[in-house]
């Protein structure tokens, strides 16, 4: 599969010799082979011109950009290359029909809950004292199927997630990285910063995969479609957040690769330092490249590809071919 490039250095990104060229402030020059790029994530100060944007559109390369503090700012989402009015209509149909929409939303919540359970069980086996959290999630998970409107579903989803977060302290076991409560915009402590950063990476990765399918990222089911942004990627990311983002956080903290010194407190909340971000991103990319056996295909697929397969399953559901059944980790 084509690669993702993460630009942390400041510099100029341009089209040169019919490929992509990045020259950093300190004079380092790199040619990035166009044929091997699927997406670029820009963290540093990158200047570019329209000629490059045209080239990126033509080569179907998507660019996510993050601000100085590492917060997701936006995406250069090139002209759709896989147009399908048919799929857009099916998506809208499932959005407008309340029962169809609720059905899909429930599937996402259930998938997310199942994967949270996987994570909790995984650490339970490693002698972390979190059986009460597991039981609580299991109990709340049972309410999902009985729920009959969007609001209660959101409430259950919130409850499941809060319960799940209770396990974090026991899993990590480092007082400096206490979870306390979930704070966003801005995150107020180290753990929240890690979660926010990981989640935003996850959202952009899913968005990149949506670009490679016929789906329209603007129509989501669990997250209401509104006038400002992509929502379908948020829905799909729910399923993968526990098994990818949270696991990475636990791994990095478990290996003591991150400490309090990797963060700075400012007006933008608690922010990771650049080297910590790089480390996180490296781990994240590694994770997405790791493969596991995919039963229905009976072959090894990477997590990144797994996200694409998940989108194909969703397409099938929308077309009425096969009911969508979210991916649940098998470990």
């Amino acid at each position: 599969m084509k690669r993702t490039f993460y630009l942390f250095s400041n510099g100029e990104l341009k089209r040169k010799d019919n490929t992509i060229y990045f020259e950093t402030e300190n004079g380092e020059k790199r040619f990035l082979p166009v044929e091997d790029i699927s997406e670029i994530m820009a963290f540093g100060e990158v200047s570019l011109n329209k000629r490059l944007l045209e080239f990126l559109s033509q080569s179907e390369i998507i660019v996510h950009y993050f601000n100085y503090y590492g917060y997701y700012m936006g995406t250069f989402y090139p002209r759709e290359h896989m147009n399908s009015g048919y799929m857009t209509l099916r998506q809208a149909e499932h959005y407008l029909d309340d029962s169809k929409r609720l059905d899909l939303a429930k599937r996402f919540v259930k998938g997310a809950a199942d994967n949270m359970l996987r994570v909790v069980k995984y650490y339970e086996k490693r002698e972390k004292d979190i059986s009460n959290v597991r039981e609580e999630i299991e109990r709340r998970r049972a309410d999902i199927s009985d729920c009959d409107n969007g609001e209660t579903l959101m409430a259950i989803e919130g409850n499941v997630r809060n319960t799940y977060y209770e396990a974090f302290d026991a899993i990590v076991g480092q007082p400096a990285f206490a979870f306390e409560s979930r704070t966003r915009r801005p995150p107020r402590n180290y753990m929240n910063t890690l979660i926010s950063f990981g989640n935003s990476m996850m959202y952009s990765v899913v968005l990149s995969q949506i670009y490679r399918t016929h789906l329209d990222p603007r129509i989501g089911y669990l997250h209401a479609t509104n006038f400002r942004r992509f929502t379908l990627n948020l829905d799909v990311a729910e399923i993968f957040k526990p098994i990818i983002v949270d696991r990475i956080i636990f791994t990095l903290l478990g290996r003591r690769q991150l400490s309090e010194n990797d963060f700075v407190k400012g007006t933008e909340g608690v922010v990771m330092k650049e080297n910590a971000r790089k480390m996180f991103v490296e781990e994240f990319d590694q994770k997405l490249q790791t493969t596991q056996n995919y039963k229905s295909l009976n072959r090894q697929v990477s997590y990144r590809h797994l996200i694409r397969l998940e989108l194909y399953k969703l397409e099938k559901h929308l077309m009425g071919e096969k009911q969508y059944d979210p991916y649940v980790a098998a470990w």
Partner: protein
Amino acid sequence: MFVILVYDIKQVRVTKVLKKCREYLYWVQNSVFEGEITGAGLKKLKMELGHIMHPEEDSVIIYNLRTTKYYSREIMGVEKGGMDQII
């Protein structure tokens, strides 16, 4: 698949070949490229290189590794180029 591409091209055409390779593979050192590439991508690259080079004077060798499972890569001296994704 993973390929290693080395070339020996007459000076007048060498930059053209260099530029073409840079679209598909990663520059490692003078006249050497490597990288992950699809079957179709390699076919395309070979065809495009074929248009540039002169079969009587130039030579390109492509080592094709179906998997990098049993491969190790060792660098002595300076590392000149590579496949870093984090820049």
